[in-house]
């Protein structure tokens, strides 16, 4: 009985259970004093032994990795920082010299701001507040100067705008970098341009032109979403499916259909079809199993409380592993800031 009680508290401590009508054991309860007989005080060595990071998949601009042995509060802090506090460079001020296109000035400026700029934000400083001009250490200047004209060689009856006009589509590849001050010496090999060349900014017709100068500054996503370096950063907890009783034959077939493909595997043991949990990680937890009366009490759906499957997709400015490292450093910087304040200001 003592073993069963301990197993029950263990499951309460490290599983979040998905019941039929709600989720149970959501909050972290493993603080010192809550459970007699458990060592819950913070121990860095125990944390380091239990903690691990497994990289699952790395693709062009997307990274999937597991963090095991960490708590929700800290994993969420990393996610929030990835979305809102890792700085990037984006167009902030647009000086419109001539805009005779159909697109209004402010709409054009809004669209230009959202274009991701391939520039490492760690090479630049934040602009001082109230500084309107911008110096070479905190500003990148881009120019977009384009004029649409009629094509004299086009066929008489053609109606294809690609044939009739020159430059009628304004793409992000038409943005050119204009070095400020000594930026050519500071960044001799750098090639500052938008990440993607084929972002359509505006459409023109003959006689219309756009002539704008753009200033890019360093900012964070909290200020404006254009500064967010990730397409999205999310995490989910590792699913944990337990079959409380052996499930056979037809019930096993229904069970397999209740979950995502690959989660439940059917094996033939002594002529009977028996269901087995093959790979719980693939499941998306649609809870279809609760709709079947005969199955819903035989399965326990839960999530492992301290196993986070992160999925970080970058907009292309910085590779996703650099983004995660930067996010962790930013959290360290926040702690350091308060430690410095504690040490410098005497507490009365």
């Amino acid at each position: 009985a003592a073993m069963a009680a301990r197993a029950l508290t263990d499951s309460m401590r490290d599983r979040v259970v998905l019941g039929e009508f709600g989720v149970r054991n959501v909050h972290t309860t493993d603080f010192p004093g809550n459970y007699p007989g458990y060592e819950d005080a913070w121990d860095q060595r125990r944390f380091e032994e239990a903690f691990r990071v497994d990289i699952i998949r790395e693709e062009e601009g997307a990274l999937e990795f597991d963090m095991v042995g960490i708590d929700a509060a800290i994993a969420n802090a990393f996610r929030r920082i990835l979305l809102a506090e890792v700085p990037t460079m984006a167009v902030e001020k647009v000086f419109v010299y001539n805009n005779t296109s159909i697109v209004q000035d402010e709409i054009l400026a809004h669209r230009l701001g959202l274009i991701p700029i391939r520039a490492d934000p760690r090479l630049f400083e934040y602009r001082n507040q109230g500084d309107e001009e911008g110096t070479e250490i905190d500003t990148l200047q881009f120019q977009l100067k384009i004029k649409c004209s009629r094509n004299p060689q086009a066929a008489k009856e053609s109606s294809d705008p690609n044939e009739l006009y020159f430059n009628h589509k304004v793409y992000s590849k038409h943005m050119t970098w204009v070095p400020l001050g000594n930026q050519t010496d500071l960044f001799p090999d750098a090639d500052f341009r938008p990440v993607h060349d084929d972002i359509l900014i505006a459409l023109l017709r003959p006689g219309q032109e756009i002539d704008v100068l753009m200033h890019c500054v360093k900012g964070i996503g909290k200020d404006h979403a254009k500064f967010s370096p990730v397409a999205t950063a999310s995490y989910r907890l590792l699913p944990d499916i337990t079959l409380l009783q052996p499930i056979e034959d037809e019930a096993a077939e229904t069970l397999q259909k209740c979950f995502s493909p690959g989660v439940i595997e059917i094996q033939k043991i002594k002529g009977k079809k028996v269901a087995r949990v093959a790979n719980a990680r693939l499941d998306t937890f649609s809870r279809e199993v609760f709709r079947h009366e005969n199955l819903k009490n035989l399965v326990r759906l839960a999530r492992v409380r301290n196993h986070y499957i992160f999925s970080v997709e970058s907009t292309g400015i910085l590779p996703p592993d650099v983004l995660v490292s930067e996010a962790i450093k930013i959290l360290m910087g926040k702690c350091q800031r308060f430690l410095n304040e504690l040490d410098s200001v005497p507490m009365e």
Partner: protein
Amino acid sequence: VQADGTDGNCVTFVLHDEDHTLGNSLRYMVMKNPDVEFCGYCITHPSESKINFRIQTRGTLPAVEPFRKGLNDLMGVCQHVLNTFERSMKEFRAQR
């Protein structure tokens, strides 16, 4: 940072320019300290970016100590996470 409280054991810190990101993770680290009787944080108003972070200690330990220890522990966690992550990235790339 501002401190306010009746005696040194129960202190409410007002942290400016912070939100759930640091608040929740710091609360978790301070709660793991067995000397702490109560620890919580709240955001006074969503339009203002500041949090009230309250620590009450058991006994006579001044509340600044668990706060400082929590910050140091959180720094330690981040450092270890960073090292582990970078090491795993290197290994993953090497064996790919």
